[in-house]
């Protein structure tokens, strides 16, 4: 449990690390807007190449990004398959008839059952699931002896495939860009950058300093609370709570025995922290100096210009082509 590192920051030394967090956040925003403005599949692929170039120059291992994409893999596949199945314009690329018959219905149930019981022994479960689904679809289209129950057409159109790939590439670009930001910026710097960028919100009576303070305290206390949770688990384990096993009823009790002390300790901690801050005469909203001061370099200006040019050309392409 001590290994958990907050955020995804990995230390490095490339220009992405030397940039000011403010310029990185603004650049991320500009590039994301352009990713949403592109309408043509070829343009977005150019953009993907550009993003990969940034990765290459910034010296970020591509595997690291791929790992970051894994959690949204399900979402990506979900949108991809829906787009492929439901967009029905353009040329037909692929056409087959899916027939559900008495024999392959039973086979299908058998396959699903074997998948259900064997999945825990397979290392890459996700790949296994996809293979099973593709296998079932192939079987439905090619092998259907016996009494026919129902049949439906399965048609893939060109627009569907293109649209699906388009959305997928767009999502990948967005996730990759934001991963670059979190990989190369310390949470504290990110927070400071956000605070500075949101400062104009003071006009609408939103105090960005307070928001930033809340975020930084939350970040600061994650390791502390994890440590505390670990100690509570040990204390309860020595009273016979076995966190690794037990029936559902026991599980609920186990969680309660962990959560109640956790809540009480957190409240006490926040109370102590508030007192400690007051004792050092912290007053919310008062002007304060900073120990870390953000500095804007020429490279930040260059990146800003680059991003504005990208956005401007995107708008140009969108409006005139």
């Amino acid at each position: 449990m001590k290994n958990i590192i907050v955020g995804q920051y990995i230390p490095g030394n490339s220009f992405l690390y030397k940039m000011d967090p403010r310029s990185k956040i603004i650049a991320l925003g500009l590039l994301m807007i352009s990713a949403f403005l592109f309408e043509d599949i070829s343009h977005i692929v150019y953009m993907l190449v550009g993003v990969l170039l940034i990765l290459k120059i910034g010296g970020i291992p591509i595997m690291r990004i791929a790992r970051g994409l894994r959690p949204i893999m399900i979402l990506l596949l979900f949108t991809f398959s829906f787009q492929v199945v439901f967009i029905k314009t353009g040329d037909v690329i692929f056409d087959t008839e899916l027939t559900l018959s008495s024999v392959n219905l039973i086979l299908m149930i058998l396959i699903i059952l074997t998948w259900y019981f064997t999945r825990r022994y397979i290392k890459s479960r996700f790949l296994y699931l996809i293979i099973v689904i593709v296998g079932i679809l192939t079987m439905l289209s090619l092998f259907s002896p016996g009494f026919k129950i129902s049949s439906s057409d399965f048609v893939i159109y060109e627009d569907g495939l293109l649209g699906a790939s388009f959305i997928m590439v767009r999502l990948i670009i967005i996730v990759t860009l934001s991963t670059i930001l979190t990989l190369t910026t310390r949470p504290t710097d990110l927070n400071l950058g956000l605070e500075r960028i949101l400062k104009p919100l003071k006009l609408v009576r939103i105090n960005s300093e307070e928001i930033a303070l809340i975020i930084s305290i939350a970040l600061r206390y994650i390791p502390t609370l994890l440590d505390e949770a670990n100690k509570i688990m040990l204390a309860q384990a020595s009273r016979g709570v076995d966190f690794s096993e037990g029936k559902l009823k026991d599980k609920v009790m186990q969680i309660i025995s962990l959560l109640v002390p956790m809540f009480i300790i957190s409240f006490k901690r926040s109370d102590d922290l508030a007192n400690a801050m007051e004792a050092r005469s912290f007053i919310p909203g008062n002007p304060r100096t900073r120990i870390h001061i953000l500095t804007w370099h020429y490279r930040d200006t260059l990146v800003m210009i680059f991003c504005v040019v990208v956005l401007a050309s995107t708008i140009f392409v969108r409006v005139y082509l």
Partner: protein
Amino acid sequence: MAIKFEQVSFSYPSFDGKNFSALKNINLEISEKGEFITLIGETGSGKSTLVQHMNALIRPTTGSVTIYGIKIEKNTNKNKRIKLNPLRQKVGLVFQFPEYQLFEETVQKDIIFGPKNFGIKEEIAIERAKEIIKLVGLSEDYLSRSPFNLSGGEKKRVSIAGILAMEPDILVLDEPTSGLDPKGRDALLELFTSIHKELDKTIIVITHDMNTVYKYASRALVMYDGELVFDGVPNSLFSDKHITEWNLDLPDIIQITKQLEEKLDIKFDSKPHNVDELFNLVKGAL
């Protein structure tokens, strides 16, 4: 031997990849009956880590701990056939901060939580709770109160009661007297002594109070920088010349005796354990 440490080392993983080694090559044997052990050492010397090995809460990085015949090594937990839970009933460990374990609505529920986890019937556990709450120096009315509305000392007693109710063979206490007033501290230590004497159980107490060590312990263990540097009777500990190196001090009574010896330029025959013994020594010498 109930608990046997063989070349145990333990290191905590840390953020920067370097490991912090909390225990270095510990060899130790603790018998099932009749020992009153105090574990002393400066803050951060590995005392708490050592006692957490005693009921298999953490596993050694190298070496092995054998608890009641069950050998705990680095990979023991991955093998699900070995049940560690029964060990925790035999070796009861009271943590330093009661906040980490109190969670029920009433004190009674909290005390019977441990015994119930080890399969003891609720009625029997409630009977035990009624006896034990008096043992730790609280009245029976406390059973129906909420554990969160108690003072620090009362919480501490309730948390100790929660472990005592499990009726462990060996009782391990991590700084049980910190945050208690002198009267409460003495009462608790008397309670441990009576459990030790009447039921002949082994008690292990982590403490910073040398008077406790001198007055109650039959054996003292000293930890210094992750190593077990002393294992023996308190009498020889306090005549050991390394004692200042380990950042320990002497019990009050020994300090007074030493001062008297220097000022009066005499040598007493024995070391006194309390004021009366010192008085007799001084009387004999004059």
